[in-house]
């Protein structure tokens, strides 16, 4: 008997959730394609159940936070609605191309944009959009990720070519043993020290040194003021210096001496840049910009 009551209670609760989601759809979505409100509401409930398995927060609260109109457009597109595709093309294809141009040359950007649009259409990739951001930012992330893969693939091809060249010609002269030892010891100590940082500070450090973001760009991504970021980075650097010195003291005496002789820990800012970056995914086109940025940092440190 109790089970029957619980079952009825659950069905009632689900019905109420559906009504609330339907009301949200009615108030926030312009139903302009073949996809109707109740079908879209069911899709929203499906997404909300996947995101909040324990119904905490209530499903309609999750739905309330979604970009519903964008999600309606994307869902209609993924169902193959031609009109929806026309709207998507008019609103976002230019952006996809412009955004790709930020990371790639004109021809590559055009190719990539074409490939992304084809994938969205043929493979129904738009169905992966969950409405948790605006569709534009999601598409930006899709473009950024695809550009990253394109650059990686190009780099792998170039590296293969370089290897063949190297095999056929003179090998690069090996580094001095002492330099090699110092470099690898420092890399080990830096990795160890960074490993003990909290995740948030690691991310700050990586975005600045590995990804070579400016403070302005980091401020956008992390929503922390430039001043706040600068203060945090200074604190992290200073903590790292101390941690590395103490780790060096604890390691074998000879290696620590080599480290102290070979590396000025006061220049840790630059050393971090060399050790963490260029990251494996850094764009070739940004190297010139980053170099000049490093020069400015070096001058600032010397000053």
């Amino acid at each position, binding site marked *: 008997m109790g089970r029957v009551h619980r079952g009825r209670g659950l069905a009632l609760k689900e019905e109420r959730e559906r009504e609330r989601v339907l009301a949200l759809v009615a108030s926030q979505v312009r139903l302009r394609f073949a996809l109707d409100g109740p079908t879209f509401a069911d899709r929203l409930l499906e997404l909300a159940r996947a995101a909040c398995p324990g119904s905490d927060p209530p499903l309609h609260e999750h739905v309330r936070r979604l970009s519903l109109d964008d999600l309606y457009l994307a869902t209609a597109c993924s169902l193959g609605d031609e009109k929806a595709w026309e709207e998507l093309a008019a609103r976002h294809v230019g952006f996809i191309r412009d955004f790709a141009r930020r990371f790639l040359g004109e021809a590559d950007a055009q190719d990539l944009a074409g490939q992304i649009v084809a994938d969205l259409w043929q493979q129904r990739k738009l169905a992966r959009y969950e409405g948790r951001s605006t569709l534009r930012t999601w598409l930006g992330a899709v473009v950024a990720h695809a550009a990253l893969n394109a650059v990686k693939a190009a780099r792998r091809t170039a590296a293969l070519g370089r290897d063949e060249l190297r095999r056929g010609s003179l090998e690069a002269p090996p580094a001095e043993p002492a330099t090699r030892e110092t470099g690898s010891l420092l890399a080990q100590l830096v990795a160890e020290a960074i490993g003990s940082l909290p995740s948030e500070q690691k991310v700050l450090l990586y975005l600045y040194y590995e990804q070579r973001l400016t403070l302005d760009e980091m401020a956008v*991504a992390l*929503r922390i003021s430039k001043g706040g970021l600068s203060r945090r980075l200074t604190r992290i650097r200073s903590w790292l210096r101390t941690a590395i010195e103490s780790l060096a003291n604890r390691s074998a005496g000879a290696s620590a001496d080599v480290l102290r002789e070979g590396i000025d820990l006061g220049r840790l800012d630059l050393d971090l840049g060399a050790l963490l970056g260029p990251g*494996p995914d850094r764009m070739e086109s940004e190297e010139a910009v980053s170099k000049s940025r490093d020069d400015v940092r070096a001058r600032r440190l010397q000053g």
Partner: protein
Amino acid sequence: MDENPHDINLLAAYLEDRLAEQEKKGLVEHLAVCPECRATLAMLARGADLLPRPVAAGSASRVSRWPLPVRVWLPLAATLVLAVAALTRFPSPKAVVPGETMGRPASPSLTPPASSPPAGDRGAPPREARVPILRGPERKVAGKTFHLVFGEWIDTAFDPAAALPSVDVKTSEESSALLARIPALAPYAALGERVRVVHQGTVYRFGARPPR
């Protein structure tokens, strides 16, 4: 991110500051160990001027029935009440044309989220197409109204959803040639370095960014 554990939905929501605290924490943990997601986030940050601004100042967990925090809406509401009281007590001698707006809120934070049209907006084009994300100053030139959006003067008649043909005018030579051909565009082009104007069914973008 496709056939791997990286979640583009979360990354995009993080950039728009729409994650709940717990999700944000989880993503930061992931970013600390995932160079691929860090690189994607870095690229998004580099192209942030082409992306919508974060919807809310706070995280999604703080999103409530009220789109603005109390400290913002309470003084605004008070100001509005006073303004309405003043208007009803001392009506302006100039009659307001029906449908004409009474002015524009100065604060950009008042602009509603681009992707969530409020109730009553059904039947109108998508808000994202009509409402610039961040409105700056407004100027009226030769019968047209322009808003400064991210450093570009944009004609209020411009509607991305209309998908009108567009002409990019990147160099001063191109600009001179175009203005010689269509002199009516001159007052608009003089607004600033970057101007987007709709003229006879075509969008002209002066100072369009050259591809990098």
